[in-house]
């Protein structure tokens, strides 16, 4: 019953987020701040993880090819497919649920605990629009993060396979061009857009409606990470079933 109540409250929150907009002059500043916190602030960790995981994917693929009849360009092909289809949109989104999601939940949750949200409401400000809408808008730039993750993942794979002696640069590049299906990129960015919405709203929901003190802010951040990850994994399955099968 509580789950149903929370699902209903989540959708009501989304509807409320678009009502009674905050003054544009103020909103613009909030959006720029959130772009800095959520997008620019995540680039470092995303770049680091993407590059090295791309390298590991390439090495694992190369090490598992023992048949001499299998062409060497398969390393590039397999790395591209793994990175573009799953690692980029899904794996990075799970990492972002931890990094960005807990930041959103704890910052909004702390505002709730310290009555800052009450202060906004007493002033007649739509606190959901003020707090959640800028996060939603800034995460519209999330596909940009995923593009960088894809590029660096594939680059990391190339560096690992060339310098590890598993493949030549020519073979790897031939592999990443092999049987290229542009729809796979479209599919990846559709998933990215959906996950961006989830990353902005579920952590905000857990922060906004939390009750209690500092301990509960920590608990809300953990719960928010769990639920954001669960929803991302479920939607990943549903979108893959709908778009690729």
């Amino acid at each position, binding site marked *: 019953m509580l789950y149903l109540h929370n699902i209903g409250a989540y959708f009501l929150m989304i509807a409320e987020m678009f009502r*009674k907009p*905050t*003054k544009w*002059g*103020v909103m613009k500043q909030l959006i720029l*701040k959130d772009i800095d916190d959520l997008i620019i602030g995540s680039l470092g960790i995303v770049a680091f993880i993407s590059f090295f995981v791309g390298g590991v994917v390439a090495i694992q693929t190369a090490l598992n090819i023992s048949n001499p009849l299998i062409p060497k360009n398969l390393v590039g092909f397999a790395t591209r497919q793994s990175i573009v289809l799953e690692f980029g949109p899904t794996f990075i989104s799970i990492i972002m649920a931890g990094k960005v999601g807990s930041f959103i939940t704890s910052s909004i949750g*702390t*505002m709730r605990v*310290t*009555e*800052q949200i*009450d*202060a906004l*409401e*007493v*002033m*007649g*400000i739509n606190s959901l629009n003020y707090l959640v809408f800028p996060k939603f808008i800034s995460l519209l730039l999330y596909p940009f993060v995923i593009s960088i993750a894809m590029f660096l993942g594939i680059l990391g794979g190339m560096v690992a396979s060339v310098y590890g002696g598993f493949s030549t640069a020519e073979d790897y590049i031939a592999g990443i061009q092999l049987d290229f299906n542009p729809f796979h990129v479209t599919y990846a960015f559709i998933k990215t857009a959906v996950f961006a919405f989830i990353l902005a709203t579920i952590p905000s929901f857990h922060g906004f409606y939390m009750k209690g003190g500092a301990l509960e802010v920590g608990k809300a951040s953990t719960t928010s990470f769990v639920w954001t990850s669960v929803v991302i994994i479920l939607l990943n399955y549903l979108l893959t079933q709908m778009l690729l099968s």
Partner: protein
Amino acid sequence: MIEVKDLHKSFGGVEVLKGISTTFEKGKTNLIIGQSGSGKTVFIKCLLGLFSYEQGCISYDGKIFSELTEDQKRDLRGEIGMVFQGSALFDSLTIAQNVMFPLKMFTKQNKSEMEDRVDFVLKRVNLIDAHHKMPSEASGGMQKRVAIARAIVNNPKYLFCDEPNSGLDPKTAIIIDNLIKEITDEYDITTVINSHDMNSVMEIGEKIVFLKDGLKAWEGSKETIFKTDNEVVTDFVYSSELMKKVRQMYIEEKQ
């Protein structure tokens, strides 16, 4: 003037406010007092519209709050200033930006007009050269002053303060109390203060509403609270040894 009639509020079947009726007068410092858990904060949050209530009526100068449209409620909230118990300053904004916030949200003033107004109210609460500090760098007393400055920056008609001197040393607490009193007189606003501090009662209690277990147990002023025979009030007021001695002296003086 704020009028409250038969206000009822429950949480999960537990009735916290059990039918409170009172008025808060314009140009006066109206105090809501009572023990912790008596319903003071719930009452003030109902007055502000932060909590809905099951029964009763709250009117601001004749405008019944529950009958207002969303736009009218927003307009009314523009006339309300609130000082929260923990100050509720926005962590990410400097002190000057915190005070400027209501002006940015609700007025069409240009930047220099807003800066002038912020300078004026910060001076009014005796805060000079604190503009660029972050709230975390300010002491408890300074944070309360900033909260008062933010509450009055938009010239409110109604000022609410939830335990404005909690966590402050007695001297700073009296300074904050007197500041609220001065502002109330200066701007002729309706001020409602939530407190359990007897010093505040003695300093600024022009009208006092005493709550006990969600009911209004007594109503009067700082002059009458010491003379009342209401046991519930005397239990609260004379709970400390010092106050017991004060009462004894009062009785002896009377005889």
